[in-house]
């Protein structure tokens, strides 16, 4: 029987703490507005809650994973090439999951918490969901297990992926050399992802490799002279942990209750902001209106 590997994130936590500490000192010297104590407290409390939630459901996730593995297509070995392939394919699976988590309200309800901070710093990286298991987000990894990667290998690669994504949550780093920015997810690329500027909405879903966004048409470059507004389209305006965790689930429940029968499911599977009567706006609608305004401004100023 193969033992599970240790969770690499557990070993990275002391480094996370040290880096947050250093970033705060950087902020004090260069940009004090980049941190807000209550926002940071909320982010880290969300991270702690997410860890507790993970512990509570770990057994169930493992059981499901092993049940799928029992019916695998082939058996991929614990060889170096398989580890590399697993890491890359897991990152692709993460891209698919992450894109769904922005385009399907059900998955968004679990992922939105991570985006609720109006700040972008290393503590934001820890603002993780408490309802990941409830939203069934783990199903995006199951195809790789069915293909033949052992769950222990996959979850270890997932941990490494998570560790990589921690350090990109910062404004302390501008840009890396072009070759690096071309392939890897970076602070610049991920700032775009966390932005609510219309040009940046629903872009740059990458975990480790930005190549998936370039391949599938979801990449946008950060523009130097446009200040980024972080958070979500309708900012919460609250540091309340309960509201941060559950506001979108509550929103879905309210909409399911009040929507006409033929439209109820739309409020679950369609993009966030969709409404049967057009009274709300999706990211695509916000972007389209912004593009029209830009075009009008250009035509009147020329």
């Amino acid at each position: 029987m193969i033992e599970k590997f240790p969770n690499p994130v557990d070993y990275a936590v002391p480094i996370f703490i040290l880096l947050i500490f250093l970033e705060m000192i950087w902020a004090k010297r260069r940009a004090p507005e980049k941190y807000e104590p209550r926002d940071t407290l909320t982010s880290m409390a969300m991270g702690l809650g997410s860890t507790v939630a993970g512990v509570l459901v770990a057994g169930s996730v493992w059981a499901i994973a092993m049940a799928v593995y029992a019916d695998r297509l082939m058996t991929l070995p614990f060889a170096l090439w398989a580890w590399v392939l697993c890491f890359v394919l897991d990152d692709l699976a993460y891209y698919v999951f992450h894109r769904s988590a922005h385009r399907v309200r059900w998955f968004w309800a679990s992922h939105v918490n991570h985006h609720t901070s109006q700040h972008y710093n290393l503590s934001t990286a820890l603002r993780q969901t408490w309802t990941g298991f409830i939203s069934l987000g783990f199903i995006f990894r199951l195809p790789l297990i069915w293909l033949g990667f052992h769950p222990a290998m996959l979850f270890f690669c997932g941990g490494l992926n998570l560790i990589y994504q921690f350090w990109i949550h910062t404004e302390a780093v501008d840009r890396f050399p072009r070759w690096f920015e071309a392939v890897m997810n970076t602070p610049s690329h991920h700032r775009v992802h966390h932005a609510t500027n219309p040009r940046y909405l629903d872009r740059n879903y990458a975990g480790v490799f930005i190549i998936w966004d370039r391949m599938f048409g979801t990449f946008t470059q950060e523009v130097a002279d446009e200040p980024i507004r972080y958070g979500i389209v309708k900012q919460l305006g609250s540091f309340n942990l309960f509201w941060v965790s559950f506001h979108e689930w509550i929103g879905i429940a309210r909409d399911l209750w009040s929507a006409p029968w033929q439209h109820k499911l739309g409020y679950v599977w369609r993009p966030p902001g969709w409404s049967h009567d057009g009274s709300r706006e999706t990211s695509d609608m916000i972007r389209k209106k912004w593009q029209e305004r830009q075009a009008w401004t250009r035509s009147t100023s020329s």
Partner: protein
Amino acid sequence: MMLLLAKLGASLAAILALAGFAKWLGLGRPPRVQDAADAKRVADMIVPGFEPVEITLDRAGSGALMRDASGRCLLIRPHGATFAGRLLDTATKVDLDKDVLTVTPNDRFFGPARFDLGQQAANWAKVLRMQSR
């Protein structure tokens, strides 16, 4: 189990220490709305394309009330070291106390926003109450 509880306890201690450190460093002071142009900039960030035709700043710079040409009203107020805002609708509660207007959007967790608007407070109370009818 004991090890897990110890890890969680240590994590909680680290969290409180980091948040306390941020507070001790004086990070994240509440922002101020400097002038009408600043209010316009913030409004566009909160509601892209919102172009106010009427702007009244809180006298201490702690936010603003704005109205656009189509009659939509927007409040902005500090949220930590940034601003948050709400488009106001028919469910908005308005309380006027001389020069101070307290506006409570239909969003329990957003909470009320208090504006010291001077002589403009009564005008805004009228405008917002008419919206509520």
